[in-house]
């Protein structure tokens, strides 16, 4: 029971007390808070990219601006894809939390989420390739450099999220919905919803405010 012990040295120095057992922390009890800290620091990266865009976003270098370049119907479709994927990821989490949840059902919702995410990425890449074909690549003006950096960084996050999602679909297929896998699914859930929050900033500041003038 006693977690404490002491050593008394032969020459009569003060005995040294120390704890043998560490405090009991259940495995992974601090993972969610740690992951939240990561998300907050990621938030700061995006804040700086938004600040760059806010400063450089009106330097067109004599080229075309947001009004000529952006197609809002495409952006609206993209926004819908990401919002649907957030909802279906929510369904995956609800299915997981049900007692006696089936692995297949969780995998199903994750795959639907992944498909929406993939659709988002494809639309974004289509938009980027269109812009580059029109001669409005990231090298054209400071506005386009900051646009591609900001939106591209978000797209990169979605790509990493998709890889993570595919990995977890395989992993819960192999090892079931154990405690560790539940924790991983909850982390990805936070990551996925966080990307949707960043996208609100992107479509508002970059696209809507850009087209507004």
């Amino acid at each position: 029971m006693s977690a404490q012990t002491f050593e008394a040295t032969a020459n009569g120095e003060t005995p040294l007390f120390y704890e043998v057992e560490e405090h009991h922390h259940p495995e992974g009890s601090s993972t969610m808070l740690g992951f939240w800290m990561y998300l907050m620091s990621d938030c700061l990266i995006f804040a700086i990219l938004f600040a760059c865009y806010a400063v450089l976003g009106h330097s067109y270098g004599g080229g075309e601006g947001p009004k000529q370049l952006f197609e809002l119907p495409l952006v609206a479709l993209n926004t819908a894809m990401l919002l649907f994927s957030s909802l279906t990821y929510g369904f995956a989490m609800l299915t997981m939390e049900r007692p006696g949840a089936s692995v297949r059902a969780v995998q199903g919702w994750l795959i639907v989420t992944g498909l929406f995410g993939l659709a988002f990425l494809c639309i974004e890449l289509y938009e980027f390739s269109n812009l580059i074909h029109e001669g409005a690549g990231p090298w054209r003006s400071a506005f386009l450099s900051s646009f591609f950096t900001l939106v591209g960084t978000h797209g990169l996050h979605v790509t990493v999220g998709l890889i993570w999602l595919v990995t977890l679909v395989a992993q819960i297929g192999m090892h079931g919905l154990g405690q560790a896998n539940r924790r991983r699914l909850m982390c990805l859930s936070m990551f996925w919803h966080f990307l949707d929050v960043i996208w609100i900033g992107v479509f508002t500041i970059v696209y809507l405010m850009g087209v507004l003038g």
Partner: protein
Amino acid sequence: MSADTLHNSAHGHDHHDHEHAHGEAPHGSLRGYMIGFILSVILTAIPFALVMTGKLDATTTAVIVLSMAAIQVVVHMVFFLHMTTTAEGGWSFLALLFTVIVIVITLSGSIWVMYHMNANMMPATPAAIAESMSQQ
């Protein structure tokens, strides 16, 4: 295999309840996700519609678009990320608060300083010189 999975998940559930008592992040319900989703759809559709149709003047539209985005961020935080002031013993909310403060300083500082740099230190163009001559 299936019995093992069942046991696993049943155990996981017990443990999960145990963690709940220790202030683990609360989880969503179907109702919560649906409310969040419907609010998000409304808060997305209105700004897009306003900008695409151009019904209102630019300033009013900008104010509505920006405030709806701010509301939608809160909606996502509450209904999708299950953010509360008590989750994780309040530490995650404290981290969020700190992040928001840093973001506000970064954004407003950058925009303010760089706007003044742009306005006051631009190399003189012929148009700017002509303008300053006419003011004298």
